[in-house]
């Protein structure tokens, strides 16, 4: 029988493959038309690398991150690779996680992305979805909400983050070359990050 973490990563892979062309098309508008293609290549490799019965969540995430790092390329490779590897570190050896664990995973993943990408909120990147999602997640669990409830609220914020990226100009990544012409387009990275959170939410809903 396959482990929960394996099944969850399989679902994330399905989301990425389903949205491959959508993400690439978004990237064509303001970038270099490869985000979906690159992420799809990376997650294909991830599924090949993972053992279906590996129940160690930290180990599986670390392997996912290392594989993304060595197969995705571009900026997404180091960013997503770092995010998964960092998230894996805080739940090493665990086969189940608490809502606090998940908050900590989000926190260190985002911290890793910020360190590698040297970006802040408001630069039209995945952080515009992830940072507000994290804030709401923590607010909800501190208020007594369970993991799924808090993640549902976080996904709503992440969606709002995508909408927000449409209103601002990019100052990081290839989209920054467009200047004001990047306004009106949603950020592909914020989109793939939101899709990831939503897939985890749907997976937990079962």
């Amino acid at each position: 029988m396959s482990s929960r973490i394996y099944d969850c990563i399989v679902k994330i892979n399905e989301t990425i493959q389903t949205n491959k062309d959508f993400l690439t098309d978004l990237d064509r508008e303001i970038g270099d038309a490869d985000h979906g293609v690159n992420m799809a290549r990376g997650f294909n490799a991830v599924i090949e690398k993972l053992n279906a019965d590996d129940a160690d969540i930290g180990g599986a995430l670390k392997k996912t991150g290392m594989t993304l790092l060595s197969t995705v390329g571009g900026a997404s490779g180091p960013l997503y690779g770092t995010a998964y590897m960092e998230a894996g570190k805080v739940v090493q050896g665990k086969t189940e996680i608490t809502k606090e664990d998940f908050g900590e995973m989000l926190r260190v993943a985002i911290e890793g992305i910020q360190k590698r990408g040297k970006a802040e909120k408001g630069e039209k990147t995945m952080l515009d979805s992830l940072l507000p999602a994290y804030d709401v997640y923590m607010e909800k669990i501190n208020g007594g909400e369970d993991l799924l409830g808090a993640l549902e609220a976080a996904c709503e914020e992440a969606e709002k983050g995508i909408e927000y990226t449409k209103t601002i100009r990019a100052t990081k990544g290839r989209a920054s070359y467009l200047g004001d012409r990047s306004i009106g387009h949603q950020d592909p990275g914020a989109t793939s990050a939101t899709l990831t959170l939503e897939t985890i939410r749907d997976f937990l809903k079962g």
Partner: protein
Amino acid sequence: MKKLINQVDDVVNEMLDGMTAAYPQYVKRLEGLEVLVRAGGSDGKVALISGGGSGHEPAHGGFVGKGMLDAAVAGAVFTSPTPDQVYEAIKAANGGKGVLLVIKNYTGDVMNFEMAADMARDEGIEVEQVVIGDDVAVENSTWTTGRRGIAGTIFIHKLAGACAEAGGGLDDVKRIAEKVIENVRSMGMAVDACTVPAAGKPSFDLTEDEIEIGIGIHGEPGTHREKISTVDEISDKLLGKILDEGIYNSGDEIAVMVNGMGGTPLMELLVANNHISKVLADKGLKVYKTIVGNYMTSLDMEGYSITLLKLDDELKKYLDAPADTPAFVQQ
């Protein structure tokens, strides 16, 4: 999409094997990796390594050889190579005198090469890096990720490569690379877009009589679109923007590169250079050397870029030094 390829996913792999089959005297491929190194190795000298997404051929593998690069790392088309690939290139090319990474300024390239440099330093290999952003089409401010690295990169390969070949230490080779970066500026344009094999359609759409000024080498948009005019008028615009930088002044000696984007005939590049050389002479600039051809391409994009490099005696010496690589030979 009509392309002379087999499977989309095999393009980079088959291209690299095609390179080694054509030029075994120059390059060999590291087994299982997207890395080309010098056939004869790089012992006893500072190693110069560059790389980036594929689709810019002959950059960078075509410049591996005596007097230029020691290794080139190829990513997927228009996608930075991954840190593990760059790390293997560093280990293989390291001849014991240190390694200089020549990185074009793109978010992905900088991140991946930096991660590789960190990994190599952990192993005790001396690694330095330079990041080139020569494209004046991009506003160089805190509001962008900085200027893009385009055709000017080839001058780093040539001059820093000559310095390393002459026995220069890592500090010296890096200083020459930085001197080139300080003195080189480029700008390009596109008549028509390129098609990334995996995407299957053009990266942007231009109408029949439209051109894009200030285009990047991955089909990134430029400063603006306009109606096509004569190549003389287009060259005036590109040169104007480069000269506005204020680093090329009457009496200066310069090197010029008129670089094709991949889909433009050499005839048109030479037509462009005819006017460029006259304009530069009118400005009192002394053209010491001109290079015309396809050096930093963008797949099948039609268009060209102009690069100017201001020279001094030291840079002239390294520009004149011999080079022997698949894509650039100079006695």
